[in-house]
């Protein structure tokens, strides 16, 4: 049974089609990335998933059925718009939110002690939320998401406003939750975090699913869309190349969809002032894939349609 199954969701606000056709599933024991550029429809999709908005079309299944109050209690949600009661003290605020999730006050207190210690917030428990720094409030929000030990964690930009030390701590906690068999749906723009954490992703653009599948498989599918070159000379201004970056003595070239790496090699070889010492296909980063897909509207290096790739990846996954 999927923890979450979203099928052909759509939602319109007035003249704006916020979500046109989004489908994906989240499994137990995985970290799932919900990706997309700003305004792609990620937050609206999450809100429909959690019954905050009602979809115009499509279906949502959570823990094998419609979302009800008992299932809501099994979800920990950290929304994009963070919010805690600013004029209340930290400890009673977190206890109140946990009891609304069905936790009894005594258990909530004992669990809270552990979380506050872990996030280095124990000495601030009697401070008003508004007296805490942005980073502390973010940590408090994470505690509010996890205190009732949810089976599904939905986190919209969980690393925003965190310093490197706390980012590492949150990553570690998410790993622990995955190992405990929890499902984690994470929406973020930080692609390196997605690469480091996510098992599978869905990429939404203009309200539609354009890429969906396991991170490794997607990266393999996009191999060939980037090349690594070592040598001397000018490796910029090459037809069919989106971007040329030099890192140390190595050039990384991101190719346009449909560009043949051999054609790039031939172009460079034809230049008089260029000496090539190494030329190899690079497995692209998710960041490159994201930019490539969003900017060029294509979902793999062979210029197959997003829908085709999606279908193929879905088939592999199943």
């Amino acid at each position, binding site marked *: 049974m999927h923890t979450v199954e979203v099928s052909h969701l759509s939602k319109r606000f007035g003249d704006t089609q916020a979500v046109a056709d989004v489908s994906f599933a989240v499994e137990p024991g995985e970290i799932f990335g919900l990706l997309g550029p700003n305004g792609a429809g990620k937050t609206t999709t999450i809100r429909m998933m959690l019954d905050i908005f009602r979809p115009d079309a499509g279906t949502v299944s959570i823990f094998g059925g419609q979302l009800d109050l008992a299932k809501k209690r099994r979800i920990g949600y950290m929304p994009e718009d963070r919010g805690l009661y600013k004029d209340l003290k930290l400890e009673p605020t977190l206890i109140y939110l946990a009891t*609304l999730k069905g936790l009894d006050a005594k258990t909530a207190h004992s669990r809270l002690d552990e979380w506050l210690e872990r996030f280095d917030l124990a000495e601030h428990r009697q401070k008003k939320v508004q007296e805490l720094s942005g980073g502390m409030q973010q940590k408090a929000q994470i505690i509010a998401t996890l205190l009732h030990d949810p089976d599904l964690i939905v986190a919209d930009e969980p690393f925003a406003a965190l310093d490197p030390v706390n980012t590492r701590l949150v990553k570690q906690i998410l790993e622990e939750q995955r190992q405990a068999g929890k499902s984690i749906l994470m929406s973020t723009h930080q692609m390196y975090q997605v690469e480091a954490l996510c098992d599978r992703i869905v990429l939404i653009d203009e309200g539609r699913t354009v890429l969906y599948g396991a991170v490794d498989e997607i990266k393999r599918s996009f191999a060939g869309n980037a090349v690594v070159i070592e040598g001397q000379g000018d490796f910029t201004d090459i037809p069919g190349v989106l971007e040329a970056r030099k890192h140390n003595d190595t050039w990384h070239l991101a190719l346009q969809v449909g560009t043949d790496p051999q054609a790039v090699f031939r172009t460079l070889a034809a230049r008089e002032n260029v000496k090539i010492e190494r030329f190899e296909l690079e497995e692209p980063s998710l960041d490159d894939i994201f930019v490539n897909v969003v900017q060029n509207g294509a979902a793999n290096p062979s210029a197959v349609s997003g829908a085709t790739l999606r279908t193929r990846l879905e088939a592999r996954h199943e």
Partner: protein
Amino acid sequence: MNNLWLIAKHEYRGTVFKRAFILMTLAIPLGLAAVIALTIFVVTSGENNLPVGYVDQAGVLNATRQSLAPTPTGIEIRAFPDEETALAALEGEEIQAFFVLPSNYPNTLQTDLYYLQEPPSNDVWGDFDNFVRANLVASYPDEMRKRLIEGPNITVHDIVSKREFSERSIVNVILPFVASFFFFVATMSASGYMLQVVATEKENRTMEIMVTSVTPGQLIGGKTVGLLAAALTQLSIYVIAAVVGLIVAAPHVEALQQVTVPWAYLGVMGLFFIPSYALIAAVMVAVGAAVTKVQEAQQVAGLLNMLFILPILMTVVIIQNPGHPLAVFLSLFPTTAFLTISMRWGLGTVPLWQIGIGWVLLIVTTIFMVWAAARVFRAGMLRYGQPLNLKAAVAVIRGD
């Protein structure tokens, strides 16, 4: 259901322990007590207990008949043979004033009053009137004399409502008026808090977390119940303060001894209180969800409050003529029915049909508003940057 009570408890605690609530709750009874105490102090400290004199040139008064007249102030009424003697006593501060009944008094019923700086109080004047009356009717049989001195006491019996109105129980007339003011203050302050908690929830961005933990019905229901409990706490403190005040003051003020518990009034107000509160709360929920800042919410609510406080602005019309068509209209109009009927209660009889129709219209309007507020709340709760304007709110209610 458990969540509803958790939210209610949270809101109740969050409200009654707020400094503004405590100040508001204590300030009104303490303020009234201070005003009453100050009034009593001013009146009693300025009281002149010197005797009042009279010169009877008409020969109608007999000092021995003073015992026949009721003189609540207990001021001595002293006879003087002529104006010169009385004037000397006045200037010597033996008396505070003196009346002169000229020789043609039986024909003109005119008297002259002499005083130095301050005229005698109305009570002293009333004592002297009683003394004159007692003398004028001295020759009548005892029973008739007593009746003439006491004067009429008209009691109006309403055969429909079975209520009685007596001019001697004036406190029972004023009491509903005062009570309606307290009901009103408690209701409006509760609705004000309702507006604030919804707008604050939105401003704090906690709405999204809340609606993924509880149903919107539990969220709004819990807040409504919690704030209603806070309002009732406030009202109870007012009532306790009033009852204690009455118990303390009754031995000293004769009129207060006539006070009876207005059960019928309390029953009717009980019928109107809950739906009126729900109506105001629903309006405030819709406003709180539609705007983006607490300050905006208060501005909009200030305008909407006018719909509820209209009877206060029309107090003069209602007092002068409780049956005036405007008073009747306000008794039927849902936002003003509660307060208008409460104000009219002590002044006369509010026809049963008006109470009935007013209540039915209030219930229907309240049900509609609660339903509409739920729709506006759901549409507006996550609009952080842009408020839901009136046109959009109407579209949401219509389901467009």
